């Protein structure tokens, strides 16, 4: 390996087994206060339902738990460590004030069923956030109930279906571009819509002629991600919306890439009828290793009657409350009111930015993606030269000649101290490298990234095996995923039970 790696240095990190391997009877990390009511005999009270034994649940002390999880944590890469350019995932900085305010006593410990008159603070948060998101998207109404982006998609399509149903015909299918995220077709299927693929044109945008040909009165909606998964803004958006609307269809926007638009353009202004937001992407709530998310759905007036219930309202006496009597509602999509803790964080983020900060954030996200594009153009193949917004998609075409594919480059990037970009997506780019730096990266960090990517490209030419065998510096080398799927081991068992 000829290249020196400037961003990262190997250092010792602790080994750690499974917690079960540390467990032994009599160790404990808990202590309950003395019982202030008479003791009871569960066996007598519960009869046949009394549980005898808790199996192999661990018995460990507090310091062991602290060390266990602290050690495990050091095996993870994280935004807090460095650039995490996963395309379409928007790995931006997660501000810590968000975490602090989410833990304020009356906010963290509010019960969802406590009377509304002692919940005005929580309801006020819902209201302020709703108003901000409506203004940011340019839509007319919103529900905060969906728990994540895909859940928001489902809610959005339920609204579409209810709308068409109210017009006398629910329609049969949903058009989805071939560049779309997998949740789009999976969602359409859950709402009983047939999925019809819409191909992209040579610039990576919706093929408007194809849309025109495929659009008819069986089409309920087009699910469009804008900017799309290539990071390209759909420049013909007005035509797209017109084609749909002319035949009574609706335009659904997957807001996964809303971070490219905030403060610069509003989907409600360019013809979108319904869209979801990912608070865990655009609005900085932490990804937490895969959740929790939050997927509010914003709609135009025509869809408002169908929103999930309950709906937040201002009551005649000026206080806030929930309205449950919504005869046209699609129903509930989740118990209670949604991932409230994420609403708190998203609102704190909006407040920390204000209108000027949100606009600057969007501009920096787009600036960063274009800077990386410029830095790597020529080194990596750029299949669609259309202007990039917040992310850029290269392909491994040049490196593949030496047998080095996108996943290999990604694994080698780990050795250089970076989290990989998104690999092999979108599907319209064979061997895709989908890079989204977000606004959270400094010029220095991106220069290191560009340098690393160039070094890997050189390695792919000169010593491809180094790339193919990567990562070289991690606790574990490439893991056997085939074996994992063929004979799944999905839980630990004591050796006596194996």
């Amino acid at each position, binding site marked *: 390996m000829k290249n020196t790696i400037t961003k990262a240095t190997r250092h010792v990190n602790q080994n750690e087994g499974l917690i079960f391997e540390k467990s032994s009877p009599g160790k404990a990390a*808990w202590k309950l206060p003395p019982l202030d009511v008479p003791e009871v005999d*569960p066996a007598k009270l519960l009869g046949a339902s009394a549980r005898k034994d808790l199996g192999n649940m661990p018995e460990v002390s507090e310091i062991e738990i602290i060390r266990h999880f602290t050690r495990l944590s050091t*095996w993870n890469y*994280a935004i807090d460590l460095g650039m995490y350019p996963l395309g379409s995932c928007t790995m931006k900085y997660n501000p810590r004030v968000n975490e602090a305010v989410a833990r304020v006593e009356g906010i963290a410990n509010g019960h969802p069923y406590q009377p509304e008159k002692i919940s005005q603070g929580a309801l006020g948060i819902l209201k302020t956030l709703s108003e901000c998101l409506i203004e940011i998207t340019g839509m007319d109404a919103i529900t905060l109930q969906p728990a994540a982006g895909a*859940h928001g998609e489902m809610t959005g399509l339920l609204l579409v279906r209810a709308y068409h149903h109210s017009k006398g015909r629910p329609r049969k299918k949903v058009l989805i571009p071939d560049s779309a995220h997998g949740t789009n077709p*999976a969602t359409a299927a859950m709402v009983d819509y047939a999925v019809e693929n819409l191909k992209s044109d040579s610039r990576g945008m919706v093929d408007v002629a194809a849309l025109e040909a495929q659009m008819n009165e069986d089409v309920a909606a087009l699910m469009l991600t804008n900017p799309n998964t290539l990071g390209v803004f759909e420049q013909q958006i007005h035509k797209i919306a017109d084609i749909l609307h002319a035949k009574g269809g609706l335009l659904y926007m997957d807001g996964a890439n809303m971070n490219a638009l905030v403060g610069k353009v509003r989907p409600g202004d360019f013809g979108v009828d319904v869209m979801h937001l990912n608070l865990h992407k655009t609005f900085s709530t932490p*990804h937490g290793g895969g959740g929790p998310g939050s997927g509010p759905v914003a709609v135009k007036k025509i869809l408002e009657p169908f929103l999930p219930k309950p709906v937040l309202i201002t009551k005649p006496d000026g206080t806030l409350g929930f309205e449950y009597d919504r005869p046209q509602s699609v129903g509930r*999509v989740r118990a209670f009111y949604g991932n409230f*803790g994420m609403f708190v964080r998203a609102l704190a983020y909006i407040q920390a930015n204000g209108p000027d900060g949100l606009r600057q954030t969007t501009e920096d996200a787009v600036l960063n993606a274009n800077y990386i594009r410029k830095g790597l153009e020529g080194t990596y193949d750029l299949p669609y030269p259309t202007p990039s917004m917040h992310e850029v998609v290269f392909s491994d075409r040049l490196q593949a000649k030496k047998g080095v594919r996108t996943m290999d480059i990604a694994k080698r990037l780990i050795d250089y101290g970076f989290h990989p970009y998104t690999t092999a997506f979108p599907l319209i780019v064979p061997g895709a490298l989908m890079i989204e730096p977000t606004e959270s990266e400094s010029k220095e960090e991106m220069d290191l990234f560009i340098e690393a990517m160039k070094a890997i490209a050189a390695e792919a030419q000169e010593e491809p095996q180094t790339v193919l065998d990567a990562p070289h510096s991690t606790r574990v080398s490439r893991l056997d995923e085939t074996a994992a799927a063929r004979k799944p081991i999905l839980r630990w068992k004591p050796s006596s039970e194996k």
Partner: protein
Amino acid sequence: MRYLPKSPADRKEMLKAIGARSVDDLFAPIPAEYRLNRDLKIPRQMAESEIIDFFRQRSRENAEGYASFLGAGAYAHYRPVIIDSLISRGEFLTAYTPYQAEISQGTLQSIFEFQTMICELTGMEVANASMYDGSTAAAEAVMMAVRLTGKRSVVVARSLHPEYREVLATYATHQGMPLSIANFSAEGRVNHGELESLVSDQTAAVLIQSPNFFGTIEDIAAIAEIAHKNGALLVVSIAEAVSLGIVEPPREADIIAMEAQSFGVPLGFGGPYCGVIATREKFVRQMPGRLVGQTVDRQGKRGFVLTLATREQHIRREKATSNICTNQALVALMVNIFMNVYGKVGLQELAKQNLAKAVYAAQKLGNHGKVLFAGAPRFNEFVLQTEEDSYAINNRLLGRKVIGGLPLKKFYPELGNAALWCCTELTTRSGIDTAAGLIAESEGIVRSAKEEAEEVAR
């Protein structure tokens, strides 16, 4: 803006490198007529201290310092301090879904341990990495049963959380899944006779909750028999995870859909919580959600990966088992840490305290009303029927900073003035005594009002 790591000079230099005159050049692909040429009408940029003040103010407008008897799917249990210490580590908090296994072993191993503990507690063979919450987990579990049986009808217990039922109804509407509802008996449990008449060879799943919405423990074996002899699967929802410390898990179930909020997750006005699905090994390929499996690296060293991804939307698209992508990983980590803290013995002792408090409260409050469904075993919730309207009682309690049980009129009008009361280890004897005293007071008022009315009538 304090989160943005660039100086004006950096931006200038970058624009120059790109070959753009100004940042507006980069937004040129957006048709000019749609570009927003004004500031968004949202609150101005605030200092950190102002943001904290704002939320403290909202907190004060909420209930602070109330003793609460609310449960009903969201439980106030003690949260050990180390939960927040550990989940606040940036390596957990600010990591993504562990697609790149080599630099995500921390998240992956912890999920593997989570899956294992959920299996131990539920008596199932496999568990997934989490679902959004208990309500959506129940709906997804039912859809899983539909796929497994090839049948479509579903029988749902009326003693299932009413909001879970609503969520299932929403999910089921467009999937051609007819739902029928089995009422509860005088014991507050699923009416077995009614269940028997509703379940047929067309039934894909029977969905019940245990302990159910009334806090009553269902007779799982009997219900499983009714389901199984008709070729249906039994799906059991568990909303109060602490019950698993002393209540036998529904081992006869085919799928368990759980809400693990009780295990160290803040009430947080209803979310984020932590759903999870557990089932038998033979059903795993129809299970929705992420799964972590054990494997080896090129040197034969143990490691963990996301596995069986061919069930999932990013591979299967419209043929996936579910559209779920993001789950509740960080919340599952809270649950995981909680399970480690209490462990094999602590969970049992914790559950015992919950039971003891509920027994004491039912007895105390029962002096001033009727505890319904006394014939069946229950865990930490009970239904109290009173002469006076439950809302009126609760208004009286609120004045003394006590939040009474959840009035059930909205969900079960036939129960009259009934409320669902919950006790946990955090409920104090003095809190229970205060509540009982206040109910007695209102009872006195009702009595004197009644006597007055009778007097007038005379």
